[in-house]
């Protein structure tokens, strides 16, 4: 029983650690995308959209690695 609950807690902990990456991907990806469109009005929107969400994802990885809890 204890082993089971410990495994569940480990899984929750892993989800918690990766939540910051998901948050940055969706939140900052959307913000970067909107800012890019607002400032540059690009012709190829798809490329900039993919690049923005990728930047959000990388920002999330950096935040996870650096333990930047403040981004959430």
């Amino acid at each position, binding site marked *: 029983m204890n082993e089971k609950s410990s495994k569940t807690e480990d899984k929750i902990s892993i989800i918690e650690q990766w939540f910051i990456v998901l948050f940055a991907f969706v939140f900052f990806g*959307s913000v970067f995308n909107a800012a890019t469109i607002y400032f540059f009005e690009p012709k190829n929107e798809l490329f900039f959209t993919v690049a923005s969400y990728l930047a959000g994802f990388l920002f999330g990885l950096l935040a996870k690695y650096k333990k930047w809890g*403040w981004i959430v």
Partner: protein
Amino acid sequence: MTDSQMYYYQSSELSHDQEKEIARAFMGRIEWEMIVIAFTQFFVWCLVWYLVITSTIPLWLGFFISLISTSFAYLPSHAGQHGHLSGNHKNLEWVNSFVGQISLIPLARSHELLKVLHMKHHAHTNDPEKDPDYFHTHVDSWFEAALRVHNQGSDERIEKMVNDYCDKDPEFKKSIDRGSMVQLFIVLTQMVTAFFFPLETLFLWWLPLKIITSYLGLVFSREPHNGLEIGRHSDTRFWRNGLPRFLNHSMQIHIMHHMYPKICHHDEPKAIEALRPFMIAKNMPGADDIPEKISFNPLT
């Protein structure tokens, strides 16, 4: 203070029983002002969203209005954490959580999570092993306090503190679990909102809550407690900064709140006037500087 004043203040007339009796006169009412503040600031915040999305007002104006309204978001929850929103009415205790949680939406925080941690702050103020606010309070600069207050969720020392409390107190753990679920729900809502309204979410929600959280760390935590020791009569100071009291949410007199947390925020000025001799007699930090009359002046 002169010797004769000191003698007066240390006389038997200023007994602990008398202090408690005076303090009790200021406890027990429903702090309706906080309920009004909670709903008003939340209404203003929602209205700003509507006005910005419909392009009635520009985003930059919405940002400044949201910044001001969000600065009023924490105190109603704080009042709820101490049961001020229900007063002595046991059947109204749900109001504390309900109003407290509504009020905290602009700050994207869970009322229950903040409540259990805040109760530990009161029980162990300035204790590096047990006070969850210790690591953004006892820092050298305002800048450090403003930054560290955002890292409460990822600071390993606080995580260890919370885990220790969870191991010892099952009720605390239940509250942390429930509060975390509410917190997760609010953050998920923020993510979905950002997907559909990215710049609006950034300027009307995320940035104001970050700026105001820094402000709370400075004014509610660092200024009243920085550099002070453990102890009911020595853990909080009376402080001044030349600004009208209103602009600091009256945190200059936070000393009163730590002495008697059951006294409502809006009754603290009268309570501190009545209890001033006791505070001076107990040599509480800054007590000598407390004016005889507390108004909306800068307390200088």
